[in-house]
């Protein structure tokens, strides 16, 4: 009883504080692992996809838990089970496919080793390193504004229409470079000018303030790779909106 109460306390603290959520999850890794193992009827190692699914399901349980709906751990167990079952259903679609790691008869080699490797590993690893650097830089600039990627993910528009509305505002800022300069100089989002210039409702922009901030930061100098990744989205939307 007393222990249960303590869990509820820490769950409610974890709802607000990312660090505490991480701590709570770390404390309950054995529980998560055991629930996942029960579900797939074999031992679940930390390398398994099911383990990652179980981890995020536990996090969802923390965010979605409500005190008056019962005990936390059974709820978390249920959520883990459901998410793993969902995941496995999705995977069955690929069941006809052969695993690359499958061993070929009469040899020690796997299928993966036999396939001619067209990818340039060295190029890829330098790319990865460059992307990582860009992201770290961006993350440092964002820290100046007091924003993390997690905040942005919570703040990101999910509906197609909202996303397009935000894209219109962002494109307006791209076409008017001085807006980006003022953003960097004053460390404040020039929301009024964005509303005026793009014609998008202020409420929409205000709701996704952090998201727009990060998207505008990406448009400032550097961040070529991220921009390349996004180019598809922004350029086409920009073309249609004018």
């Amino acid at each position: 009883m007393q222990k249960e109460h303590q869990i509820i306390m820490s769950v409610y603290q974890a709802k607000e504080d990312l660090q505490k959520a991480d701590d709570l999850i770390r404390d309950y890794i054995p529980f998560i692992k055991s629930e996942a193992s029960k579900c797939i009827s074999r031992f679940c190692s930390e390398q398994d996809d099911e383990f990652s699914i179980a981890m995020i399901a536990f996090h969802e349980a923390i965010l979605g838990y409500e005190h008056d709906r019962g005990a936390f751990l059974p709820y978390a167990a249920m959520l883990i089970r459901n998410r793993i079952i969902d995941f496995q259903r999705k995977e069955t679609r690929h069941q006809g496919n052969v695993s690359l790691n499958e061993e070929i008869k009469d040899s020690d080699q796997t299928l993966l080793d036999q396939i001619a490797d067209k990818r340039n590993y060295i190029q890829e690893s330098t790319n990865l390193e460059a992307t990582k650097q860009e992201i770290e830089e961006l993350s440092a600039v964002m820290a100046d504004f007091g924003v993390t990627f997690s905040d942005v993910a919570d703040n990101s528009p999910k509906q197609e229409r909202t996303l397009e509305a935000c894209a219109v505002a962002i494109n307006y800022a791209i076409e008017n470079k001085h807006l980006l300069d003022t953003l960097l100089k004053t460390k404040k989002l020039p929301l009024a000018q964005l509303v005026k210039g793009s014609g998008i409702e202020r409420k929409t922009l205000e709701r996704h303030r952090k998201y727009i901030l990060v998207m505008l930061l990406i448009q400032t100098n550097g961040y070529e790779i991220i921009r390349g990744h996004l180019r598809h989205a922004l350029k086409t939307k920009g073309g249609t909106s004018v």
Partner: protein
Amino acid sequence: MKKYIVMECHLSYAVVLDEDGRFLKVANRNYKVGQTVTNVVEMQIPQSVPKEKKSRKWLYTLAAMAACVIIVVTLVFQMGQMTYASIYMSINPEVRIDVNRKDIVVGLNGINIDGNDLIKGYDYKRKNLDLVMDELIDLAIEKGYLYEGCKISLVLDAESNEWIVTKSNDLPIHLNKYLSEKLTFTIEISVKKATNDQIIIPINPNDSDYDDSDYGDSDYEDSDYDDSDYSNPSYDDSDYDSPSNDNPSYDDSDYDDPDDDSDYESDSGMTDYGS
């Protein structure tokens, strides 16, 4: 297939950016920052259903309270409009005047054709009972229904005896004051339910102040004549009845009649009245 760049890695989840510019929280399948991945498992935060219910419940309470307030207000308003008592006034035109608890007239109906004619075009709304009576009598005089020596008959109808007693005292006094200068007439007051309680008071202009000076003795007027005797059934048996109706020139002299005095004496127990 959609591509995602991994932006940030946490223990339980990773933040990725898709090609449309969405940031998503996905299951962290041993991702590294900067990696391009496909086939992510997105985080779904369960919707909190009970919160909605709670707000609904609160709404229900509010709605119920609002309904109660409306009902109470309507009731109070209705009470104001409710007929508390009625007065049937007949000269020849007969009308029914409905009043509420505060003696404000809430309804006026003609009982016969002349009555309908009398109140035609007359606005009674939010007027006091006394005012309506006065104005109706003025109207009756104007239209020729009421003339010298006429008889006005008032029938009181109410649940409360107290109201009847007060009104049967107050109404004649009020009408006397109002009309004493204009006309000579008789007021007859009765109670609708108990027809035995008929009280008939003769009035003529000269005599209007009889309750003040003629008797001289204020004790008598205060205690017996005004208040209690009207409601006293034994009063009906007295001699006032027949002469008052027949004889308009009836005056004080009868009061001084020794026969009557003896009646008073026995009623009031005042021995020094005769002297």
